[in-house]
């Protein structure tokens, strides 16, 4: 199996306790260094001429020594076999001191900073925003770090999307990510605010696009739809979890399988321990075929089948994330109506966005 991107969940521990965290199954486990090494080696051996390795968690910098060891190991292997290795880190930034910063800069890391901008500290989160802002500014100044942010909005904070995008843009962030809290129910009122906030943000995105040619908020996509979207886990990716299990994507590891009707083994490749004896080869092919079926046209909502939807080609649906929106037994193929509505809002906004760009260009 060809692998171009491997994600290592180095720990399930986190020094934050965000209310919207979707990692319900957290056991506080760290990955065994030997398992991490074996998994990475497998990914390296099965990569073509380049490999991206992403460290995630929990908060991966709680296991900084392990991240360091993995980098040295991969850099050595990359040099020996003439492969390009790219490094990425998903972090809340709180543990980035000068030593870590220098390390990330020296190794040309892509840093995806989970930065929850509320423009003020929330009750019980003393100085979190202040600390985050200081780290953010240090990261921006580090020229060899490719920086992006991701901010999670809840139904209570969704009205701050525009303000936070504007703030991050002014600070100098070139790639701003927006996510919605998956653990809350999004009612019509909060969806209406979400829609209004996207409309408001669009003007800023268009204006920046005309200045720099870059799209600063990743919800906005200038590319015309080019087919039926498939779950990214069907791509050339692999995730190594703290217990040594292997998946197409971290979202499947964190999915609450007890609440789904699908068997876990349809989406779990197996364990790192099984790689050595060749046991996994057949399983890899079977599981990959299950991921490949996770195409938008195979899903359905309570009221309709997705393949007959107006937004078929524009819908970017994560079948693993949607479980968090609801908390009852559902099939992976069945999309709750309000999750469908979120995707429709994004799809409509993108249609409008592309039309506005075209209008201005003609």
């Amino acid at each position, binding site marked *: 199996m060809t692998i171009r991107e491997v994600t290592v969940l180095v720990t399930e521990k986190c020094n934050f306790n965000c209310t919207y965290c979707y990692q319900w199954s957290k056991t506080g486990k760290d990955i065994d260094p030997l398992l991490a090494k074996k998994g990475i080696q497998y990914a390296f051996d099965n990569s073509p001429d380049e490999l991206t390795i992403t460290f995630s968690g929990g908060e991966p910098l709680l296991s900084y020594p392990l991240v360091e060891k993995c980098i040295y190991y991969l850099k050595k292997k990359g040099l020996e076999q003439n492969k390009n290795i790219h490094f990425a880190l998903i972090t809340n930034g709180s543990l980035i001191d000068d030593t870590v910063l220098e390390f990330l800069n020296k190794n040309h890391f892509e840093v995806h900073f989970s930065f929850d901008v509320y423009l003020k500290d929330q009750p019980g989160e003393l100085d979190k925003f202040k600390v985050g802002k200081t780290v953010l500014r240090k990261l921006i100044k580090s020229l060899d770090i490719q920086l992006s942010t991701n901010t999670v909005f809840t139904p209570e904070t969704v009205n701050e999307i525009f303000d936070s995008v504007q703030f991050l843009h002014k600070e100098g962030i070139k790639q701003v990510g927006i996510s919605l809290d998956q653990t809350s129910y999004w009612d019509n009122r909060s969806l209406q605010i979400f829609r209004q906030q996207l409309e408001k943000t669009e003007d800023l995105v268009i204006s920046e696009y005309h200045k720099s040619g870059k799209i600063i908020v990743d919800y906005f996509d200038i590319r015309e739809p080019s087919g039926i979207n498939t779950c990214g886990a069907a791509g050339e990716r692999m995730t190594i979890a703290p217990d040594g299990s292997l998946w197409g994507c971290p979202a499947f590891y964190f999915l609450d399988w007890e609440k789904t009707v699908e068997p876990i083994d349809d989406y779990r490749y197996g364990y790192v321990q099984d790689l050595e004896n060749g046991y996994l080869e057949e399983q890899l092919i079977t599981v990959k075929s299950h991921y490949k079926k996770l195409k938008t046209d*195979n899903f359905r909502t309570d009221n309709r089948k997705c393949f007959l939807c107006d937004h078929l080609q524009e819908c970017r649906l994560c079948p693993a994330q949607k479980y968090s929106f609801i908390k009852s037994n559902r099939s992976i193929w069945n999309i709750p109506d309000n999750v469908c509505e979120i995707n429709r809002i994004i799809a409509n906004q993108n249609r409008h966005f592309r039309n506005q760009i075209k209008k201005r260009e003609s």
Partner: protein
Amino acid sequence: MGKSIELSDNIKECIGIIDKYVNSKETPDDKTVINAMKYLSLTMDSALRGKHEPDGCPVPNKKKPVGIDI
């Protein structure tokens, strides 16, 4: 001898919708027929291109323009 092709349930349903529209007085609403035709054209196009589908991952910063071979 022509090669037999197994049609997916979605394609069979699309053919059914269009067939009903063409042959019967009881017509499905126009939008459904149009979307069924669009779907047939899209899957045919995708099959001819070797079924290379776009990566639909919505996770921020993961939207690299890569495709997935189906």
